[in-house]
């Protein structure tokens, strides 16, 4: 389809348009999750969506995971205190509001422990050397904690199932740049299957000496396993680990319950997932994986945000034609034998025209390749709604920048 040439519009693809504004305006949408591989602009998209929703009248809280410094500052997130704070300079005329927070993994973990353990027990847990490592420095904890925080925020919101202690009617979450795409989805389940597993009972067995039931269950494996573990880990290490697991045992029950609740919440119709990608091979492959996984899990997918798409002012001047013109002009100028080498950049009367055409040809080559990749995605995932956001020469790090991204997101095609 060759659309008439508006200025710098995104190219059209054969996929249903994602109507972001309708999604944001729908009061039935209470949780919006942005996911995608690293470096595709998830955090910026989440912040832009939250801002747009707020300025269209929703009362929004946005949870960001690891925003770029200047973006964080523009949202008023100078300090990481794990508490949502109002964002200044949001247009509230439509009756909306925007609070933002940045996830503090360690503190979120602490809160969970404090909520489920007696003060004495919490103290013992905090003092165990494993706790420090597990709660702050080991990778992977952020997925658990992001989901925990999402559950917490929503439980305080003014939505069905929330206690209404906060005015929020929409929670927007950014997801951690996970090692494997959907770690955040797997985390709650993985945790509960682990808690029901034999290994944890085995670890707890010595701490519950006399618990005959355990001995019975484990009689066969117990000696070879604990023997193996102390050989590998050392007796001291094993003692610390057992003390840690025993200490967390009480906390785990509550933790599991919450993890399961969060999972159910994600699968409920009030949630909408947006998969964010850039028009590149790797990012689209990850996006395809997300889309398939979400579908299999029965998670409500709203659509795909295709970020940083190359646009053009002159969609009808193809790379091929522009390049032919460059060659012609440079031949006319007698400027060198190999018109393709950058070293032989144009000189002479038509140097400027040839140079501008070179830029356009390169741009169109990128654009054509991107649209080919995106087109292939659309063919393989028919029916997935999609919105394209043009590439910007500059990074976004203030509210105006977010607003302009938001405008592109909201421009229903």
């Amino acid at each position, binding site marked *: 389809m060759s659309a008439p040439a508006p200025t710098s519009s995104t190219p059209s693809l054969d996929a249903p348009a994602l109507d972001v504004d309708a999604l944001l305006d729908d009061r039935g949408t209470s949780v919006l999750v942005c996911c995608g*591989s*690293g*470096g*595709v602009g998830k955090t910026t998209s989440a912040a832009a969506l939250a801002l747009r929703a707020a300025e269209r009248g929703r009362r929004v809280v946005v949870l960001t995971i690891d925003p*770029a410094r200047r973006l964080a500052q523009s949202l008023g997130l100078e300090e990481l205190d794990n508490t949502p704070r109002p964002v200044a300079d949001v247009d509230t005329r439509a009756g909306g509001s925007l609070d933002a927070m940045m996830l503090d993994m360690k503190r979120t973990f602490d809160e969970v422990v404090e909520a489920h353990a007696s003060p004495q027990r919490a103290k013992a847990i905090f003092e165990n*050397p*494993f706790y420090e490592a*597990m709660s702050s*420095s*080991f*990778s*992977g*904890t952020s997925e658990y904690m992001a989901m925990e925080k999402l559950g917490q925020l929503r439980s305080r919101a003014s939505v069905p199932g929330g206690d209404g202690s906060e005015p929020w009617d929409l929670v927007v979450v950014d997801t951690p740049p996970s*090692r*494997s795409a959907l770690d955040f989805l797997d985390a709650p389940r993985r945790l509960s299957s*682990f808690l029901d*597993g034999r*290994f*944890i009972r*085995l670890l707890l067995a010595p701490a519950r000496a006399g618990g005959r039931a355990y001995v019975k269950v*484990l009689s066969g*494996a117990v000696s*070879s*396993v604990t*023997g*193996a*573990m102390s*050989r*590998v*880990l*050392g007796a*001291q*290490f094993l003692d610390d680990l057992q003390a840690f697991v025993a200490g967390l045992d009480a906390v785990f029950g509550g933790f599991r319950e919450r993890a399961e609740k969060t999972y159910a919440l994600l699968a409920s119709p009030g949630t909408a997932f947006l998969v964010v990608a850039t028009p590149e091979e*790797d990012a689209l492959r990850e996006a395809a994986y997300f889309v398939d996984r979400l579908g299999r899990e029965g998670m409500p997918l709203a659509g795909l945000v295709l970020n940083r798409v190359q646009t053009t002012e*002159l969609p009808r001047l193809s790379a091929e034609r522009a390049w032919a*013109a460059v060659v*012609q*002009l440079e031949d*006319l100028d007698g400027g060198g034998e190999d018109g393709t080498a*950058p070293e032989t*950049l*144009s000189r002479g009367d*038509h140097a*400027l*025209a040839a*140079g*501008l*055409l*070179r*830029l*356009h*040809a*390169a*741009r169109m*080559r990128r654009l054509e*390749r991107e649209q080919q990749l995106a087109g292939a995605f659309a063919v393989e995932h028919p029916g997935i709604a999609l919105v394209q956001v043009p590439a910007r*020469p*500059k*990074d976004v*790090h203030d509210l105006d920048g977010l607003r302009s991204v938001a405008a592109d997101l909201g421009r229903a095609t």
Partner: protein
Amino acid sequence: MPEPEDRREPRGGIAPAGPHDERLLFPGTRLHVVTGKGGTGKTTTAAALAVALSRGGRRVLLCEVEDRQGIARLFDVPPLPYEERTIAATADGGEVVALAVEPRAALLEYLATFYKLGRAGRALDKVGAIDFATTVAPGVRDVLLTGKVYEAVRRRGGRGTGRDGGDTKQRRDGADDPRQHTFDSVVLDAPPTGRIGRFLNVNSEVSGIARMGPVASQADSVMRVLRSPHTRVHLVTLLEEMPVQETLDGVAELQAARLPVGAVVVNQIRSDTLPLELLDGALSGAVPASAVRAGLVEARLVRGDAPGTTLVDGLLAEAREHDERLALQEQQQQALEAVGRPLVELPQLPGGVAHRGLEVLADRLTAQGLA
């Protein structure tokens, strides 16, 4: 040039393979760790570096630890199992061996090799200890992955047989082994910049927790190799604000953890350009639009009697955006230069990186002294 460094043999016992070539930015490096923000081309850079290092008849192991099969895709081979496989060979006898490290298999192998726990290892697996270790306790993954890389860097023997070296003959401490290293160098496609410090430093945390015993001493040995002058951590970036900021943060974090920072690789440098004085002239209005139009008429893109305004304005608008991008890139370039690490540049390959593209990038890395 890198600053002079302590070149003593670390106690881990690694002899540098290959000549101390003057041309090289980091002579004597045996482990190249490649990190970068997501989307900057970290895996591509690691693969191109492995190809470059394999030239001249060398044997290079290319490891990936993120479970994404990025290497198989780049080299256009079927998904890699947890097994060392030759995926590319050079005419002069060099080869790139690939390994996708899988934490579960690495743990079982580790238990079998170091503790002779064949059966007990399976018992651990049965009760879910292996699952616990590799999925629920996330740090353990990193310990295993770095442990496997450490093993590959130090492994000796197995040369000339064309088979994987030393599965059975492998010795627990290769320090006094007179045989040649199995791999002249190892390239690790590592986790992204945001996690690299934690990933590489995980063993010092472990040794802090475990305090003593076999786990602690293994962790200490791994840290010794990672901090030795035979290891270099390279950071891949684009000339964009966020990747550059992450690179700066990453360098600082690595330095604070006493991990040896190598080069900063600036990836996907675009070659679409036109002489700056022309661009400036056009954008400032010093060169009139009519001059552009004349060229377009000459190229028959605009009819001689048509105004051609849309085309001229469109081209100038695109050039203006290009100019803004250049200015931003210039700032980012300066910020990177201020880090004081060698900058290595790689071009953007129009049409993406196919296998042939890796060779082009490898040429560029060699020309700039990274291999």
